[in-house]
């Protein structure tokens, strides 16, 4: 992907193109849902063909020929949310609390399909769980968003962690 900066094209669309500010607002809303543990609403943001992907290797090109920390299609993501809500999810007794800061937004248009937007940002996530050591994660978000009549939906949320290839204690929270 190229570093295109904030390119906004308005041609060939009945509606004006979304601005970077619109997209930024969407991403901030998306991570707020995770911080607030509103997992069902978070899940609903994903397209039916949407994917949540956290590679396990820097620069990993494909989720198919190398392991990933998360590689969830929508049915798998549904299971994940179902499990996060299960009363017997022991790794969430007590529950984690998270806070995410998102910054340095960039927009890349997807030339082939004017309804697609690629938004890149940087994030830091703090996770605290009583009795466990504080955890700090950071990296880059890539959101591939599709504009539909019902609003934006997530086609891909890719999370490139700076420490993706290291060993991890149990992880329960999507980034």
């Amino acid at each position: 992907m190229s570093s295109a900066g904030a390119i906004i094209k308005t041609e060939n669309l009945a509606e004006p193109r979304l601005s970077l500010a619109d997209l930024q607002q969407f991403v901030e809303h998306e991570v707020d849902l995770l911080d607030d543990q509103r997992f069902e609403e978070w899940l609903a943001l994903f397209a039916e063909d949407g994917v949540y992907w956290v590679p396990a290797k820097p620069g990993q090109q494909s989720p198919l020929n190398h392991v990933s920390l998360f590689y969830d299609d929508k049915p798998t993501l549904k299971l994940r949310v179902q499990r996060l809500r299960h009363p017997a999810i022991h790794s969430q007794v007590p529950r984690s609390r998270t806070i995410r800061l998102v910054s340095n937004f960039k927009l890349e248009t997807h030339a082939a399909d004017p309804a697609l937007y690629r938004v890149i940002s940087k994030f830091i996530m703090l996770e605290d769980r009583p009795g466990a050591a504080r955890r700090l994660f950071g990296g880059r978000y890539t959101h591939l968003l599709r504009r539909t009549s019902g609003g934006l939906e997530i086609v891909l949320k890719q999370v490139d962690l700076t420490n993706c290839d290291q060993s991890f204690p149990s992880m329960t929270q999507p980034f």
Partner: protein
Amino acid sequence: MASYDNDYLRNLVRDDRVHRSIYTDPEIFELEMEKIFSRVWMYVGHESQIPKPGDFYCTSIARQPIVMTRDQNGGVNVLFNRCGHRGARVLNEQSGNARTLTCMYHGWSFKLNGDLAGVPMRRDFDELTLAASQSGMAKLPRSESYRGFVFASLDASVPPLLEYLDEARRGIDELVDRSPQGEIELWAGCHRYEYSGNWKLQFENLADMYHPPACHASTVGPDGRQFSRRPGNRGGSAPFFAANGEAIVAQTGVRGLRNGHSSEASLFREEQSGGIWDDYRTLMVKRYGEQRTTDILRNRRHSMSIFPSVDILIAQTSVRVIRPIGVDRTEVEVFPVRLVGAPEEISIDVVRFVNITHAAASFIQSDDLEAFERCQQGLASHGTDWVLVARGFGHEIDEGNGVLFGDRSSEVGQRSQHYAWRDLISAA
């Protein structure tokens, strides 16, 4: 070093219980490194991780840095990752390819078989000193491989590898035979997770069919089925509960083997089938014939754990390596396996399913990691000194060749591990 004598150590393991200090005592952990991890065959890696001359793969045994290399003659070497000059760790990347292995400190270089290759300003050294084998990167006292699985030992006097593997070699056979070419590859990297707990907590869990109904309760959906753990139109997902309300997994049997190895019977009843799995079966029949194919694909075992370092996951087509870091710190790696000659989609599906069962973020492993850490915390209590491994004790069936079978999630596998541990730790 020990302030514990061998009788004391031997008594830490009783028939149906073990003393909590074997999980928590740093001095016992040091003894394990010396008397267990340095005296038996330890899994190093798989030959497919170093396919070409010059390839190397770094790992550790008993906390000592080692490297597995492929030399110019195609031979596999297991070396200490240590410069023969001043002792610096030579290779600092996990894996790669090199013509020679060069130390960053003074520039000594080594052949892939460990022999000293180059010394800057060589004439200022005595040639006899340089000629001594210790000036190279030393080989581990023993290394052998079985069907591509490379093992090494820090003890020159260990019996041959196959003697140590004993009945556990079947686990390797049953995995490798699932390739239509009788060959596997570790091709897709590995999951790497860690926990604040003793290594035995993970090892015992490999033979534990009793825990899923409680520990993994959150993986069972409202329909009473666990999420699909492996692909295929049939033979992937399985109902979780039997008609009498017990979890099917906990009705499953376990085997304890000689030398601390253990094996769980398969969770699955049906052969995987449908779509690509039918193509795969055709390839298998072409190679092995109908009868042998049916036998290979029979859901015989879930996994085979080879004490104390590696677990061969047959049903889930992967390899898990257990690495103690400290008395209360353990790192584990899980490598998806490619069955060479099988349709590519099967290998891709294995990668995808291992993500949701064995990643640090997976549905299964995150529960187990929570259990290991809670055990380590609970074992700090002096409430009682004993930890029970009593399930099914006295009801094992002797199947011969040192194999004891216990049905209904017997703790016979854990007992086999602890008895082997006891014999090693209390040896002279």
